[in-house]
């Protein structure tokens, strides 16, 4: 690449991170494990691919510790598609994130699908040039991730199950809570911000056993007083916009075009499809159908048309049949 006046360029700004996520809106991001699948995803109209060693359904089946994918797998995928390539790191594992950033991945998913690495903290995402997406089950988790620098939020759902119920639960939890902010006064907002900041307090209490004041450092370089204030700022922004201030996708259990459409109608900006495509009988067909369903989520006749003759969908799992300690959504806080 030719040299140009590098001094006047500004990289990794919040505008660039949130802007990148906005370019994904109305799109489908697909989990892929090799170059061939990545090509199928791109040809089907995916806006980005998530490069993985194993899809969530296989991670669930295999068990053991799930880590960042082998960089060779990710590099092979980056080499064959022109759409953005994302990859997952373990919750709190900033060294995996640094490695992926150096590789040139376009967005990092700090994901509960992998085994959490840090029992206390998620990654301080402001430290990175590339944007992050993080999962949430409720508004508190969403607000903490946004405050930590996430440029995009997704529902956790329950990955690898082909069961939409948890994604709908999490979307309704977030949207419902956003509506209640409308009627909250200043002191109620401050109280909620304090409640949402407790997770940092709990961590620091476990680590140091000190008495917490507003000047106590509770996470990386941030003092408790500042954390509460900034979390309240995020909440006030959400209250005003009546939506999350970053792009909000659905994830975790989407297996059919109608699953994608219901998430869009419930207010998602787009969808992640994990195991739903390459664990189905006809990946190409289902990939294209889900892309169309997201673009036309409010046109029932299109959903009906693209749902026809899709072949065998991925086998679903009842959430009640999963032992609680194996629920991926319980990871992260």
């Amino acid at each position, binding site marked *: 690449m030719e040299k140009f006046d590098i001094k006047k360029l500004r990289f990794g700004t919040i505008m660039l991170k949130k802007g990148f996520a906005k370019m994904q809106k109305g799109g489908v991001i697909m989990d892929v494990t090799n170059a061939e699948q990545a090509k199928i995803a791109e040809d089907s109209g995916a806006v980005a691919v998530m490069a993985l060693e194993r899809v969530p359904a296989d991670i669930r089946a295999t068990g053991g510790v799930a880590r960042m994918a082998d960089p060779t797998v990710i590099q092979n995928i980056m080499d064959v598609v*022109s759409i953005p390539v994302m990859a997952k790191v373990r919750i709190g594992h900033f060294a995996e994130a640094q490695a992926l950033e150096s590789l040139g991945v376009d967005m990092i998913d700090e994901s509960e699908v992998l085994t959490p690495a840090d029992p206390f903290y998620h990654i301080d995402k402001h430290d990175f040039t590339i944007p992050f997406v993080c999962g949430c089950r409720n508004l508190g988790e969403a607000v903490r991730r946004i405050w930590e620098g996430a440029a995009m939020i997704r529902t956790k759902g329950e990955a690898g199950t082909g069961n939409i119920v948890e994604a709908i639960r999490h979307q309704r939890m977030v949207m419902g809570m956003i509506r209640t902010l409308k009627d909250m006064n200043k002191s109620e907002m401050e109280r909620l911000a304090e409640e949402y900041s407790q997770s940092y307090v709990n961590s620091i209490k476990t680590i140091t056993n000190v008495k917490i004041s507003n000047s106590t450092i509770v996470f990386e370089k941030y003092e408790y007083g500042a954390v509460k204030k900034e979390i309240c700022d995020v909440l006030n922004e959400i209250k005003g916009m009546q939506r999350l201030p970053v792009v909000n996708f659905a994830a975790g259990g989407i297996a059919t075009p109608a699953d994608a459409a219901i998430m869009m109608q419930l207010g998602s900006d787009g969808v992640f499809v994990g195991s739903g495509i390459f664990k189905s009988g006809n990946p190409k067909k289902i990939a294209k159908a889900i892309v169309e369903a997201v673009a036309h989520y409010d046109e029932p006749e299109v959903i009906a048309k693209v749902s026809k003759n899709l072949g065998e969908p991925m086998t679903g799992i009842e959430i009640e049949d999963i032992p609680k300690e194996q629920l991926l959504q319980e990871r992260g806080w």
Partner: protein
Amino acid sequence: MVKKISIGVIGIQGAISEHVAIMQNTLKTTDTPGTVFIVKNLGDINKIDALILPGGETTTISKILYKLGLHTAIAKKIKENNLPVMGTCAGCVILASEIIDDIKDDVKLLHAIDMQVERNAFGRQKESFEKNINIEGVHHPYNAVFIRAPVIRKIWGKTKVLAKINKKIVMARQDNLLALSFHPELTNDLRIHNYFLDMI
């Protein structure tokens, strides 16, 4: 009576609501009677006086445009009715006549502007940047937001360069067609949308 302008924003994928909001804001601040609406169906093309092709993923947008028949309809309306169009980022690529791409995938171009584009010309997301640039016809400087941005490699015919970063062309115009490789819709700066409004 003053005619109301109808401005369509292609609503397939990407930064759609941002373009609608900033264009509405531009109409309001300039006291221009008009409406801005999202174009998703073939029938909408007859209702528009001007069109915005937003940023998003080029491959995705171009595939669906083609599938819906919008691609052909837009190309026809540009040719026969001189439809004013602004394309940002992915939209800039789709307006082009030629494309250079490392990775072969069939992006369907509108062949509307005499220019050749190169996708992701500055690199991947970590090379995305903001920079103050000079734009001909716009009061300087303008903070431009480049996200996995394309550049215009070559122009010919009636196409004019409006902005460059060193040798790389990032904004060009051919008659009432405007192409830019950055994202005015992500900012609160109305100057680019004002510029486009003056072209309609």
